């Protein structure tokens, strides 16, 4: 009796080995996948989000090119740009999709140019893109009054300056784009490629002489400081002092600018409610 029991037990030894081997193999695979998920996937996602940021930066550069061309044509035509919101998820693993926002912010920028007795103010809107990254640093891209700005709050830098010229060392011409959004078509949030349609409306010219003071109200004062500190202004021999605040930029010229001409170009932009 005892011998038969013992025989039964020993005859099942090979079955146990198979199970042990399978368990060990599964453990190995799980360890491998775990290392992948915790170490490499976040880095891949970060790279993907950074790549997406570069892609949006390129699209905003094209957007600036579009509004520059519209202002030069001066004809009531409409040109379209595409902005991609959100980055794709990783294949197979299906993780890492992000969602961004694109909006047209009204009256977000104001410039006041003044001399001893007179002043002129202009208020314009911004086209603002904000990212919602999960691994890469969040960035904001803004087309403001014809200037392309990149911001990683609280700092900002100038990527593309507005159209301007300086003649006779003291006469300044500055082109500002007043971008007006349509109600109901000035905000979109999510994932996908969205159409931004831009149309030239008209242009008005304002001139003010012997300018001594420029004040700007904006969310990105450092970027505008970069513009007014650019070599074109510095090499024109103008002497000035500049104060950069939280949301303001103040410039005081020691010798007045001869003639400050501001061309305000009205552009109507609308975000399409459908996506491609």
């Amino acid at each position: 009796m005892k011998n038969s029991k013992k025989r039964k037990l020993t005859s099942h030894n090979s079955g146990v080995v198979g199970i042990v081997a399978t368990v060990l193999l599964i453990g190995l695979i799980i360890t491998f996948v775990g290392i992948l998920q915790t170490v490499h996937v976040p880095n891949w996602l970060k790279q993907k989000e950074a790549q997406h940021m570069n892609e949006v930066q390129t699209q905003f550069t094209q957007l600036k090119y579009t509004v520059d061309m519209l202002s030069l044509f001066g004809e009531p035509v409409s040109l379209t740009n595409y902005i991609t919101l959100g980055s794709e998820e990783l294949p197979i693993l299906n993780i890492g999709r992000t969602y961004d926002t694109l909006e047209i912010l009204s009256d977000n920028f104001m410039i006041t140019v003044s001399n001893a007795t007179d002043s002129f103010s202009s208020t314009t809107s911004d086209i603002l893109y904000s990212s919602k990254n999960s691994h890469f640093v969040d960035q904001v891209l803004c087309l403001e009054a014809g200037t392309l700005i990149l911001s990683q709050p609280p700092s900002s830098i100038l990527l593309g300056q507005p159209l301007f010229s300086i003649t006779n060392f003291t006469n300044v011409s500055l082109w500002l784009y007043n971008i007006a959004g349509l109600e109901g078509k000035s905000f979109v949030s999510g994932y996908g490629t969205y159409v931004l349609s831009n149309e030239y409306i008209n242009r008005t010219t304002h001139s003010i002489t012997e300018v001594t003071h420029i004040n700007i109200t904006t969310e990105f004062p450092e970027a505008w400081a970069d513009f007014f500190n650019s070599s074109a202004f510095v090499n024109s021999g103008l002497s000035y002092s500049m104060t950069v605040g939280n949301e303001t930029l103040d410039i005081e010229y020691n010798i007045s600018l001869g003639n400050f001409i501001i061309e305000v170009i009205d552009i109507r932009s609308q975000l399409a409610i459908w996506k491609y």
Partner: protein
Amino acid sequence: MKKNKYKYVTAQSHALIELSATLLLLTLTVIFFAAIAYFFFSAPQTSPGPVITITGKLIDNNLVLEHMGGEAISLNATIGISFGSTRLQIQAYDYIDTEAKKDGLWSFGEHVIYPMYIHPEYLEAQQIEVMIINSDPASSIMFSSVLIEPLSDLSVQVSIDPESPIMGTPVTFTITVLNNGNINVSGVKLRFQLPVGFTFVGYSATSGSYDNNTGFWENIAMIHPGESAVMNVTAIVGRVRPDEITQILILIDGSGSIKKKDLDFIRNGFVTAIANESIFPQDGFVELTIAEFGGNPGFLNTKIVLNSTKVTNETIASVLSTLDSIDTMPGLAATSCGFLLGCDTVTASSVFTPSNRHVTLLITDGKADLTCIIDGDYLADPGSGVNPENATVIARNYLIDEFEMNPMDDEIDVIPVHLTNYDTFVWFKDEIVWPQPGYCAPPMRTELPLQGFVYNATDWDQFPIVINNFFTTVLNRITITADIVQASAIDPKVINNIDGVLIIPQSP
């Protein structure tokens, strides 16, 4: 029994063999995957390198590395710079501003600025190669080349002694070339041409040689940052024949405030000054246009008293006769109408070109009272919504643009007569005369660029003296300039590369 025992032992051996084989297989599998992980994923794994964009550029001979987006990195990052045969290694921490050092990170928008100009040999190289290596984790962040284009900042200053020289006597010009930049500049060549009529006596210079025939001062020795080269040129003052046409536009206020007796002073003043050949050239180098403004809305507000005429020995009689018959235009001061008509008349002249010298003189006794907009009819537009003073400024700016006025040569001046309101005087000085800033004369300035002046006459009986002084100053003024024409490094700040002086030679 023996057979069963044998079977049992055999079965156990099989199980052991299988177990061993499985364990061996697993061990091999683990080694295989570990090898893959090591070779392809660089195990043992540290945290991945930062995703960052840094741009390098050369600004004013400083290497500027700017964080243009992405994650922040430690200021312990090492920056390798090589140019020519020079190899440098610096730390970002040492060349970033104090504010940025607070958090120990090189963050978005912050600049590392390395002064390349402390290495004079960098001017000989074609490009700078830059590599930035992050400290933790150690990884190369950026490798790029920056093309070298050294920039200089030279300035010129010219002075004269005495400031009011007498005809036929010596005068000494001092020309100074100053290096305001941060690099050595060689091969500087400067142009300084004495006017025809001046007799060259001699020169002395700290370096280089001056050729009076060509007007060039060259072979100037290398000028180090903060240092200068100086040249003195002595000449005998002579009568100078102008080399360009001067188009003078006079705008006269003929409105109701001008009395008949005032008109006599105006006519007498013009005739006396213009008839004097030593004051007003009659060799065809001056073209005179006179426009008058006044009148009431709905009537004529401006007219041409003297159409654009070159003043010569042949035309002088006719010009004087016209000036002697100037009459009033009772009404209001339509100053902007006068500016617009006068400007369009001058530009329509057959001798007009922007390169001519343009002098505009406004003679009035008060601020503008009527508005004229730029609609081509030169008639008052009282319902335009533009106030008369703004309309005058707009018309004045229109004239500046049409004449393409330049501050080294052209000007707008005002002779206010019998002015009682100080605000009006300030308005003329700050908003009408050109170039700005305006000033009150006399005395007349002798520096360049020019500045528009307001020459006040207390009453109309002073007008003949004032207009005589005006023509003497404006038409006998000699402009002598010096400018840099060549240097070893590009100077983008051209505004200070030219300077000059104004001389009004006095009669002996």
